[in-house]
């Protein structure tokens, strides 16, 4: 396995506060990697910096072997990194079909002239994109909303649309920012299954999430951040039992957790 994404020495501070203080990690191709940490640990800053939405103070970001450090967001997307957002972002006033089509249009060969004149190259690109969109809309189970405006969907459904949109152009890696936060618990399982299927089909994911159970069932590897530094990294099982993680995350030592569990039982 080789690393699709590797970041080294990420540093970012806001007015003297170190949001990121030298973070280094790798995401292997074909894996699902989790990025967790308590509030303010720098998870969101990390993916904003990786995806080009914020400027890094120092460090490097390498995507599939090429250095993309400091490039604007749209260039990093074109290089093969697609991301979603914590507060779900979809085009509310456009149809689901258009939402998905827009996500892929930058990746086909049609130029502005092709688009304006509706050339054959343009029509072929549209057909290919539509095939992909139908496939993904089926995967997320929203076929019957395909022609409907995205604005009428529920919050959880919009998260699924954002996921499908990120997958549209066959990216090298998909970065999901809290894919199940605020999602109805009954739907979380569906998202879990969908991500697993996609991963088996070869997609690589980096997932930032608060829901530890979701992360530990899904992820092959988990990276834990605390106060802008990497606290530890390992398999889900290792992380689950790491006393430092419990303390950072829950503010409790393993003994306290145990005591609490005994109390609850």
């Amino acid at each position, binding site marked *: 396995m080789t690393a699709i994404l590797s970041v080294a020495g990420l540093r970012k501070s806001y007015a003297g506060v170190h949001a990121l203080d030298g973070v280094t990690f790798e995401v292997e191709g074909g894996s699902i990697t989790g990025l967790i940490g308590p509030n303010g640990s720098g998870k969101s800053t990390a993916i904003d910096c990786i*995806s*080009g*939405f914020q400027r890094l103070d120092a460090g490097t970001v390498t995507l599939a072997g090429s250095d993309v450090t400091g490039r*604007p*967001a*749209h*260039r990093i*997307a*074109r290089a093969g990194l*697609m*991301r*979603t*957002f914590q507060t779900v*972002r*979809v*085009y*509310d*006033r*456009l149809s689901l079909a*258009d939402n998905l*089509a*827009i*996500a*892929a*249009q*930058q*990746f086909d060969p*049609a130029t*502005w002239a092709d*688009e*304006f004149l*509706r050339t054959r190259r*343009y029509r072929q690109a549209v057909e290919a994109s539509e095939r992909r969109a139908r496939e993904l809309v089926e995967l997320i189970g929203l076929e019957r909303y395909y022609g*409907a*405006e995205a*604005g*009428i969907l529920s919050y959880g459904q919009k998260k699924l649309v954002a996921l499908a*949109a990120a997958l549209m*152009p066959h990216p090298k890696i998909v970065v999901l920012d809290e894919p199940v936060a605020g999602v109805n618990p009954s739907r979380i399982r569906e998202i879990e299954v969908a991500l697993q299927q996609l991963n088996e089909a070869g997609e690589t994911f980096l997932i930032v999430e608060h829901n530890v159970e979701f992360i530990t069932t899904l992820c092959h590897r988990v990276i834990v951040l605390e106060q802008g530094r990497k606290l530890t990294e390992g398999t889900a099982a290792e992380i689950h039992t790491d006393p430092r993680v419990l303390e950072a995350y829950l503010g409790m030592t393993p003994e306290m957790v145990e005591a609490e569990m005994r109390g609850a039982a």
Partner: protein
Amino acid sequence: MKLATALVAALVLAALPSITSSNYIIGVGISALIFTVAAAALNLVYGFAGLLSFAQLGFWGIGGYAAALTVMTFGGSFWQGILWAALLNGAIALLVGYPMLRTNRHAFVISTLTFALLVTLVARDWVSLTRGPLGIPNLPPPHAFGLRFDTPAKFYWLVWVFTVTTISFLYALCSSRIGRTLVAIKQNEPLTRAQGISPMPYKLAAFALSAAITGAAGGVYCFNLRIIDPTFLDFYYMQTFLIIVIIGGAGSFWAVIASGMALSALPEVLRFSDDLRMIIYGVILVAAMFVMPAGVAGWLHERRLASMRAALR
């Protein structure tokens, strides 16, 4: 369906001078067509790309002066004048648009407004070029292929061809993937960036094309007035374009076209009461905004959406 309606409407409008011999009605028709073009151009930047540009007034004025000066000072034809009006505006828009579009939305609005005011100052104070407040009178009627467009009816047909051409171009643009991308940028710019789309070229292209078309429309309009002076940059024009777009429904192509024709005719229809005419016009506009804050198109859209939601329940 919409396209068929538009085609029929265009043919009916083409027949206007054969239906009536009233120069007054034909005159209203000429203004309505030209204002509709300028409003459609504003709709491209404001309705589609979400950029509230007051610079349209400046482009309208530059277009008028460019066309008039081409003919009167530089000895060119009317057609060359319109071409220069469009090209000059496109170039200016690219030049001033780039820094303007890098600012946030509020700063953009203010800088476009300032641009329009600057153009007014230039028109008034660069006397050696524009002849200042005296303006440039006696613009000759256009001519081509031995035909002189010297009656209102003939000029009307010229304007009709101009309108159909520019509206067709704008429709091809707005209904293409480019138009859809502009809407996407307006709705959620960070998301477009995350999808590999660089917003700047799209915004800049929309701004420049809109400027070129507004300039050409201004050029045609001053030859309708037969004179150009600094009142050509009166805020009245900007207000008219903006009202047409907002009442029609910003971002909705055909609604703005229909609204352009209707609202240009409305003040004339209200002439039955000359004293209260503009007051009634104002009341209608305010009432329309109360009932339909997103314009006629937005209102229809909300109703469609409501029935869709009901059907899904």
